[in-house]
């Protein structure tokens, strides 16, 4: 049994310690909002937050998570009321949507660190792949959060 703190809840999972967090979340904890994209930490579809920091869960073994608080897309808010989710809705960001859980969490981490990020900050922090090409709307949504939180 491995104990994990997922979205504010203690969860016991009967999974080998070398299982990537991604698959423990998806197949064992039933949280399928976190997506499998590449398995090598390249695309970011599997992004979760670990104590608020961006983490690519497909290359993190659950034995290495320890007591850190895991936040998945399901734990960001109960009703899509997180400012980043609201901005994503306002800008109609998603297309196929598959990468968007990871994109949203990457934006949450960025905005926590830099509440008013520059475009360079966005370029540096938003390194998840979107094959549909929603990048400009994501950028607009991040700026929207910054603007609305400042006003």
């Amino acid at each position, binding site marked *: 049994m491995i104990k994990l703190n997922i979205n504010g809840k203690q969860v016991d999972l009967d999974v*080998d310690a070398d*299982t*990537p967090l991604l*698959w423990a979340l*998806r*197949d*064992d904890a*039933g*949280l*399928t*909002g*976190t*997506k*499998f*994209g*590449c*398995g*090598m930490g*390249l*695309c970011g*579809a599997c992004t979760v937050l670990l104590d608020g920091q961006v983490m690519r869960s497909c290359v993190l073994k659950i034995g290495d998570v320890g007591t850190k608080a895991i936040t*998945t*897309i*399901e734990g*960001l*808010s109960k009703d*899509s009321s997180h400012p980043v*989710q609201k901005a*994503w*809705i306002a800008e*109609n*960001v*998603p*297309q*196929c*949507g*598959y*990468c*968007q*859980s990871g994109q*949203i969490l990457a934006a949450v981490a960025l905005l926590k660190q830099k509440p008013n990020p520059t*475009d*360079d900050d*966005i*370029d*540096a922090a*938003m*390194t*998840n*792949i*979107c*094959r*549909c*090409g*929603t*990048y*400009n*709307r*994501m*950028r607009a949504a991040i700026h929207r959060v910054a603007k609305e939180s400042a006003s």
Partner: protein
Amino acid sequence: MNRTSQPATAPLSRREFLTSAVAIGGGLALSFSLPAQEGGPPRPAGPPAAPRQPSGFLQIAANGAITIITPAVEMGQGGHTGMPMIIMEELGGDWKQLVVKDAAAAPLYNNPLFGQQSTVGSFSVRGWYTELRRIGAAGREMLVAAAAKEWGVSPAECTAANSVITHKPSGRTKTYGSVAAVAATMPIPQNPALKANSEFKVIGTSPARNDVAPKVDGSAKYGIDMVLPGMLVGAIKGAPTVTGTLKSFDDSAARGMKGFHSTVALPNGVIVLANTYWQAKSALDKVKVEFDPGKLGGIDSAKVSALLHAGFDEQGAVVRNEGDADKALAGAARVVEATYEVPYLAHACMEPMNCTVRANGDTAEVWVGTQSPQAVQAAAAQVLGLAKERVTVHMQYLGGGFGRRGESDYATQAAMAAKASGRPVKLVWSREEDIQHDFYRPAAAIRFRGGLDASGKLTAMEARVVTSAAPSFGGPPNAGFYTSSVGDMAYEIPNLKVTGINKDIGVRFGFWRSVNQSHNPFMLEGFLDEVAAATKQDGYQFRRSLLQNPKAKRQLAVLDMLAEKSGWSKRQAGHFYGISAFGAYGSYIGSVVDVSLKDKTIVLNRVVTVIDCGVAVHPANIVAQLEGGMVYGLSAALRGEITLKDGAVQQSNFHNYPVVMMAQMPKTECYIMPSTEAPGGVGEPGTAPIAPSLASAIFAATASRIRSLPLSKHNVTVVAAARV
């Protein structure tokens, strides 16, 4: 929902498109089948088959809920929003009461344009536009007739909007829900009155997409998210070579592993089944597999290129022959020649291929995100020995399609694993499998020869278009298809000969966003740019001079709008522009790319795109498709290539099949030409202009001509301009 079917109330005949109206839970439901279309595939004689489900396309419940069953799947292109908009426009329904559902796999949903139930080829709005409007209009007329009957007034005295029918003289109103059951008993109008474009209230607006909410909270269900009681999860290893087959495997080292269930042999690979994906993947890594490399065990990219080039001298099929190009070229004052070439490409949908199958004895169910529900249905049915009607396909969201999910190989494999194990199986491909076992965008090449007269006028052109899509793209050999944008070019050249040569190389190929037009415009526009440069003409003005025939007016208008919006004639110092424009998928499209040079690096300042797609159903979504198509095309242009060595694909994941990310995303401007023409496609056309426009801009900046892709092969580095 409690469904009570009643017999259709209108006599049925083959030419009638609305074939049933049924009371459904106290409401109205409309179905229809299509009359034979001119130019479409032949249809069997006799009455149309009864709709496979009573729900059809439109249901209005007593509580006012409007359920629209969309024949286009949702893969990010907006099918779940655009298709309902078309029905809602004519229905006059309240958008807030809309519920969208995917169509089941059934011939009822075959696209009127090409007779298959596939969300491909930018065909959805084009194929369904008129039919969906007629369904909406028929529904409105039946609802109005029902209200008028209850009031004892003439329907002509009533109007309908926002799900409310109003009797104008008295001001009385009834909601759609309240008359839906009566409406189901009304005769079905066979020629319902359609609105004039000027009366549109929905088409041409940009309502929020219906799939946004579940895609920001993680609740959207893709095929890969499927969970069933007792389900096994499969991980797959396919043959490393493109024609490889399974020789043998030894799974003794995997057998004791936690969660391991079994190993399933496929003709060209193995699937390991376990309780979870990671258990399956871990066990698969322990299975020793031997493959026979097959007939292409020795092929490499140089060989592919040599085969394409050999095609230049083959006879091929002449698809366009005007004047006498051979003679004109022989007598030309000057001949410009160039050869263009592009590699194989993978789709790399964000969601790796996957499929879940449950066999229930004499029926089966499939859960999958697919562009072609009936292809998946047939694939599973064949493996399981069932009639395809016994297989239900449960449509899930698609994590990208781009043509890859029009194939059904993964459904065949999942069905084989379900059959072998006797358990429900979810098969999940790794990214490596996805990149290495794709249906690749064909490698292709064109050899051009252009003849100039003494004054420098382009009087002759020969294009020999060679592709690697033989025997064919899923149908009879069609040189018109794979030469598209060249064979059907709008440019007027008095002596013009276009020949298509299709090579059977043996590497698996398929449809890839905009397919042939993902490369043919790069080649043709590049060559025209060369002719313009050779005769010291401005690229925009040169193209204009070839588009003076009235038949070319829409392409000319796009070109002119591009010049205007980009400030073509007002370039700032240090800015270099490239341009291209052409017809694609029933639309006309083009772009201007604005670059600067920073040392030897190309700085991509902005991309200006113009499309004439006829009536623009959802302008914001069209812009999203243009930007998204541009990103897809830019990824390919910059670094996209699938190469072969010793019969195997060399790329495996995003580190060696890199795609555009946020930092490489240029500034974009997209403009939609106002139009009342019939809708054209928007999903595919946007992919095509970036490569030719960028290559044209690079030539303007550096005088080096790019005749093959990707740019990384030419040591050209492109970065997006810093945003200020």
